[in-house]
């Protein structure tokens, strides 16, 4: 139970190396964007953290479906872990975006459709944790959380497509018709390499953290069972 699997140690090392290589590519390989200067380098990890956030929210939705199908606690633990990690990454993406926006848009924050929907997503999933903390019955908590995670996920694609459907100042760098017209930029090959490697590195990092978080969740569940058994013995 307490012994760390060798594969997890290997994943720790792999994810750490990949994030370091990604940072190396961002700082030493990708060129400085001429219109924005050094702050544009925030873009690589800003998108990667937002991507991991969305990936985790999707994983929580899938875990929710699986929990409702199987009634197996492991899916509840996986859903909680996914949401917790994604909340952290999505918050980092929002803060990094705000720091990037300050010199480029001349404001820390604006109620633009992308920023607004991203803030709503963050609040929806923060409420997921509040909902869990308000329910004492483990079965009811797991069921409600699963349903909440499934419905909560509908807010995520809305954030993704908001900059493609609505009038916004947030650039569409990937798949946008004319990035420069929206305050964005066109990526050259070294930029694309740094960008896609960052996405891959953070995806592996997410998998690594999720494994750790699921192990923690299982241990917490085991400790809880032992606590109840100990209490029953005493009484």
């Amino acid at each position: 139970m307490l012994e760390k699997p060798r594969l997890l140690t290997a994943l720790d090392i792999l994810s750490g190396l990949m994030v370091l290589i990604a940072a190396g590519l961002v700082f030493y390989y990708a060129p400085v964007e001429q219109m924005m200067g050094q702050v544009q380098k925030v873009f690589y990890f800003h998108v990667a953290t937002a991507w991991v956030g969305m990936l985790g929210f999707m994983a929580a939705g899938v875990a929710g479906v699986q929990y409702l199908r199987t009634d197996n606690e492991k899916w509840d633990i996986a859903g909680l872990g996914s949401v917790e990690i994604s909340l952290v990454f999505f918050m980092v993406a929002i803060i990094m975006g705000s720091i990037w926006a300050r010199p480029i848009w001349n404001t820390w924050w604006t109620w633009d459709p992308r920023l607004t929907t991203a803030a709503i997503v963050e609040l929806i999933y923060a409420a997921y944790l509040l909902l869990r903390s308000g329910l004492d019955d483990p079965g009811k908590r797991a069921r409600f959380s699963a349903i909440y995670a499934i419905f909560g996920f509908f807010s995520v694609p809305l954030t993704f497509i908001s900059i493609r459907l609505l009038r916004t100042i947030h650039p569409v760098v990937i798949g946008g018709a004319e990035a420069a017209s929206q305050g964005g930029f066109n990526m050259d090959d070294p930029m694309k390499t740094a960008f896609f490697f960052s996405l891959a590195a953070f995806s592996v990092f997410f998998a690594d953290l999720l494994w750790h978080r699921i192990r923690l969740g299982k241990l917490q569940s085991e400790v809880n069972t032992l606590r109840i058994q100990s209490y029953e013995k005493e009484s």
Partner: protein
Amino acid sequence: MFSRLFVPDTFDYMIAGYVVLSVVLSLYIASISLRWKKEAAKFRSYKEEG
């Protein structure tokens, strides 16, 4: 050459962005590690009792 002269100096903002990323993710990793240690101690203690 002309455009290079006018690249804005936004270095501090870049550093701020990466400091936020490093601090928040480090705190989260530390929180997982601390919670694991706490639960592992409880687990051992219940196992010894039982």
